[in-house]
């Protein structure tokens, strides 16, 4: 009998599994920035999780109250540095609605094109980090190849790879060089699709990847609504909510596209929704280039804008979900209150629910699927 063995027997009888608390982060490479996670573990199983955020809290909302509306654009860029154009657009839409500024037709097309391109680069970054979280270095190296190509276009047309400061109230800063646009068209039509096919071959069919993602951290639509989850995470559980369709802005209603949804609600569904969204976004950007009308790109707006008194809340489909700008104006050149409803903040707040009961190695797979950006969460 094994119990009679002097060591094993006693261990089996007296051993008690105590739960331990494991601190992960804030300085940790898999944390996508400075994020701190307290996990209560029983063996390898997560009993409870408590995210600690705020390590990158820069006080953007307070700083914005000390800047003019145009200067705030610099802060808006740095809110979510992976989907800058979406942020700028949401902010511009809020101010344009508040100050009743018209946007020229061509500017709307340009904005839509940039927003969809940045959605591609954002999802590429997510694709790379998902691979990294699951222990593979290859996807991140591969994801940077198309990302750099699109960044080349951004830099040539707006002057900066990451922080463009390109959108203006009532349009965009300047028109795009047609030669650049043509080169981008050629790239989007062929090479980007090839690259996405390559990613599918690299990861999507991979049996190890599939078995780690399938059925992981399932979420229902009701749960997602209750936790405030939006964006691709919400669409992965079967909801069709997409602000690009529900509250049409830009030229989305004139483009031929469909919102990507999945019904499974697990980590694999989130993966597949984002992978398909990349293709849809590339398709939309292509259509924008093809159908874009000529014309003005900017209406004349006073350099120091003084919107009338009032408040506005604008919802925008950013790459991570519903991005809201709540601006209160008191008629002065500086915002009275500048509030950002950041999608990743709400998505990450669902993390304790999602990873309760999971294994510790699954935690990173769940965490990577949320696609969080700490700068946007902490603001």
């Amino acid at each position, binding site marked *: 009998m094994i119990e009679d063995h002097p060591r094993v027997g006693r261990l089996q009888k007296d051993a008690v599994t105590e739960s331990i608390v494991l601190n992960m982060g804030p300085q940790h490479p898999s944390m996508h920035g400075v994020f701190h996670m307290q996990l209560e573990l029983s063996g390898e199983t997560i009993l409870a999780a408590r995210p600690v955020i705020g390590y990158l809290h820069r006080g953007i909302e307070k700083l914005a109250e000390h800047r003019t509306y145009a200067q705030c654009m610099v802060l808006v860029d740095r809110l979510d540095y992976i989907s800058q154009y979406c942020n700028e657009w949401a902010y511009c839409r809020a101010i344009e609605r508040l100050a009743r500024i018209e946007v020229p037709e061509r500017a709307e097309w340009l904005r839509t094109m940039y927003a969809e391109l940045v959605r591609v680069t954002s999802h590429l970054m997510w694709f790379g980090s998902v691979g990294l979280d699951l222990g593979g270095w290859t996807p991140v190296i591969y994801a940077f190849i198309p990302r750099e190509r699109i960044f080349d276009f951004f830099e040539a047309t707006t002057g900066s790879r990451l922080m463009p400061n390109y959108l203006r109230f009532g349009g965009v800063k300047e028109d795009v060089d047609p030669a650049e646009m043509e080169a981008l068209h050629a790239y989007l039509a062929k090479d980007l699709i090839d690259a996405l096919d390559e990613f599918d071959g690299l990861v999507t069919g991979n049996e190890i990847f599939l078995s780690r993602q399938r059925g992981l951290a399932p979420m229902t639509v009701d749960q997602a609504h209750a936790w405030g989850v939006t964006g691709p995470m919400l669409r992965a559980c079967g909801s069709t909510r997409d602000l690009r369709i529900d509250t049409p802005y830009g030229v989305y209603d004139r483009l031929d596209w469909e919102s990507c949804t999945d019904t499974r609600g697990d980590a694999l569904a989130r993966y597949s929704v984002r992978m398909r969204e990349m293709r849809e976004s590339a398709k939309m950007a292509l259509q924008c280039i093809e159908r874009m009308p000529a014309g003005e790109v900017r209406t004349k707006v006073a350099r120091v804008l003084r919107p009338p008194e009032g408040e506005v*809340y604008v919802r925008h489909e950013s790459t991570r979900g519903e991005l809201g700008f709540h601006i209160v104006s008191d008629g002065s050149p500086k915002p009275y209150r500048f509030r950002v409803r950041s999608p990743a903040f709400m998505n990450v707040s669902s993390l304790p629910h999602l990873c309760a009961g999971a294994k510790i190695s699954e935690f990173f797979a769940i965490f990577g699927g949320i696609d969080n950006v700490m700068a946007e969460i902490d603001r």
Partner: protein
Amino acid sequence: MTVDLEAVAAAHSGRVDREGLDPAIVVPRETWRQLAQALSEAGVWFSDLTCVDRGETVEVVAQVCASASEQITLKTVLPNRDLTVDSLWPVWPGMDWLEREAYDMFGVSFVGHPDLTRILMFDGFEGYPLRKSFLLETEEKAS
């Protein structure tokens, strides 16, 4: 699905403010949670919660969606000397972090919140940064 704003506001001794760009339901703080409860039962989901410091008072502002495209603003006004309001956490669990943030930045206490601690700033931090009375050490602009 649409919500009859006037009826909902009247049922919770509030009023509908249509002056702004979006309609807003303004209720006294006593009926804040009941209003949310009633809306939640009507299938409304939430989108955001924040505060606006108006000097003498602090407004608690929640953005909710009645349908995919219909958006309603809920407001309640708290006097500066007594910043307490019922938590909406029992109605919408996702309000958890939003209310913690409002507490951290404005010092509004949400009664009934399970874990009302600072979320963005560290625990030893003093003051509520987004209040207008909290001043930044701004550099003097050269001119």
